């Protein structure tokens, strides 16, 4: 039987993989992809809890997360494009204008 914890562990793994991507990717778009993974992992958690606790709240929040993710991606990519226009690169570790 597949229990709640199976889903949660799966989500945790996905989350960690996403984190790994965020930490290691050089390309800003790649970082965004990692963030997407992490957000999806969260969604899995929400839906799993909602399903196993018979609670609607998780589903509603999943919807919210989804919508916000779309907004985030739109703005994030717009920023990436602007950065690309200005700096001719989207390598995240070269974008250190704000360093000491």
């Amino acid at each position: 039987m597949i229990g709640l914890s199976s889903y949660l562990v799966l989500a945790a793994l996905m989350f960690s993989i996403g984190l790994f991507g965020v930490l290691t990717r050089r390309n800003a778009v790649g970082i965004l992809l990692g963030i997407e993974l992490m957000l999806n992992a969260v969604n899995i958690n929400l839906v799993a809890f909602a399903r196993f606790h018979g609670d609607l709240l998780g589903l509603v929040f999943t919807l919210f997360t989804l919508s916000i993710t779309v907004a985030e991606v739109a703005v994030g990519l717009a920023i990436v494009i602007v950065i690309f226009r200005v700096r001719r690169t989207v390598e995240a570790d070269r974008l250190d204008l704000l360093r000491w």
Partner: protein
Amino acid sequence: MTPDVALPLLVLALPFAAFLLLAVVGPLRRTGRPAGLVSIAAIAISFAAALTVWARELVAERTWGWIPADGGPIATVGVLVDPLANAMLVLVTLVALLVQVYSLAYLGDERPGALGRYYTYQSLFVFSMLGLVLAPGFVQMFVFWELVGLCSYLLIGFWYERPAAARAAVKAFWITKLGDVGFIVGIVLLWSATGTFEFTDLFEKAQANALAVPGLATIMFLIYLGAVGKSAQFPLHVWLPDAMEGPTPVSALIHAATMVTAGVYMVTRTEPLFALVPEVLTLIAWVGAFTALLAATMACVEGDIKRVLAYSTVSQLGYMMAAAGAGASPAGFLHLLTHGLFKALLFLAAGAVIHAVGTNDIFRMGGLFRAMPQTAVVFVVGTLALAGVPPLAGFFSKEAVLGGVWEAHLTGPFLMLALTALLTAFYMFRVVFVAFFGRAHAGGHPHEAPWLMRGPLWLLAILTLAVGIRLALGGGEAHEEAPGWLPPLSVGLATVGFVLAWAMYQRGAVDPARVAAVLRPLDYLARRRYGLDGLYAGVYRGIILGLSRLIGWIDRYLVDGILNALTALTLRAGDALRYIQSGRAQDYVYGVAFGVLLLFVWAQLWRR
């Protein structure tokens, strides 16, 4: 309100009303002379009221609760009218009235604004002094005591543009405050021991022997300290000569007749309490006598006419205190009254001289008898009175004091006071001979003072004479027990002083320099005011500078050091830590991840 206290309240209220009017209504104050007239009018009516009170020999007490508490107010305000207060009221209002009239001419050259300010202060001062006189308890007395001190500060520093005046004002303020600290501590201790501030209650308890509280001697000594400061007793007398930096009428009012006598008045007022502690009384007597002698010696070598009078005042205050200490407070109080009159006379006359000559130095005067005979006459009258020549007022009161001290079997103080009497005659006639009969100095054309100034002078001179004659006729009740040899001795001492002065300064029979050479150490000490001012300055500087150095060191090395260390640390830390801010978003994600991990660790290790 009972009619009993209506008149005293009127006496008290009028100067205050004048003060309020002048203080609040700026345009009126800035007119100068009209402002003075307002003040004079107020004090004149006040004087008339005081005279009525005195003539009626009113005795009344009326208090209103001030600081409320369970079981009756802790402190009250009100008026306490008795013969003591009546006499004081008359003296204060009289001298104040004359001084204010006199000032109108003396300070006529001042800017109107300054003159208005002067009269504002004057009104406030008179109000404060009257409030002190009428105080029915220690708290009110202390409040007005401090107000008087404040006014003294303001008036001494009237010419605040002059550094010397400003310094003198501050000095007077601070030194009297030294005594006031003892005063208030004593008051509070007394209250905690007896539970009341009221004189009447205290006297009743004293009479019923209900005041045998432990440490009463200490308490009374502390209260006496207030008088030491205010009445310029040794060793806190040093402020009074410096206070001569103020306008001369101010000196006449507050440093001759009123404020400095507040200490004596207080001791006299609370005499039933002091009577319980003979050891303090003895101390008062000794200190008073010593003060008298010390000030007299300093007066002998002083060249500044106002300072001579100032030392003389200190000396006479010593007399009064000695009398109070000897248990002859009526004699002391009598001397207070007569001295108030003739010392005001002397000061005002000296003011007229200074006004005319433009200098304080008696050795630059001389021959003034011809230039301003009226002033010379009244000054001589005052001098005679001060020296104790019958039938002038000073003779009787001084004799009463001497008699009282003798009666109390205080031989040491008596001898000192007798010597002081001699010296008093000497230094006063020294001034008279040098300033009025000596060879005239060139420079300026001294002229008689205007009638506005002369009028008060004559009035005071006549009063001095009249009081003396009144005392001679009525026979002062103070000297009834005095031994018969006392009047001749007194007159004799005065005569010796007169002859010495005449011989040294008029005839030139004895060269003052040779006398000074003979009495070299004494002369040296007296000229340097016995080093007291230097000592104070030294101690003050030592303490202040030492403290300043210490605080400066603490500030520079401890406080600043900590701050410097902190800033240096912050800078270094910033230098080191800024590399954390790599500007790369992913490095920050590492930070977030580590934070989350820390939360995990915390939650799993400690939360359970």
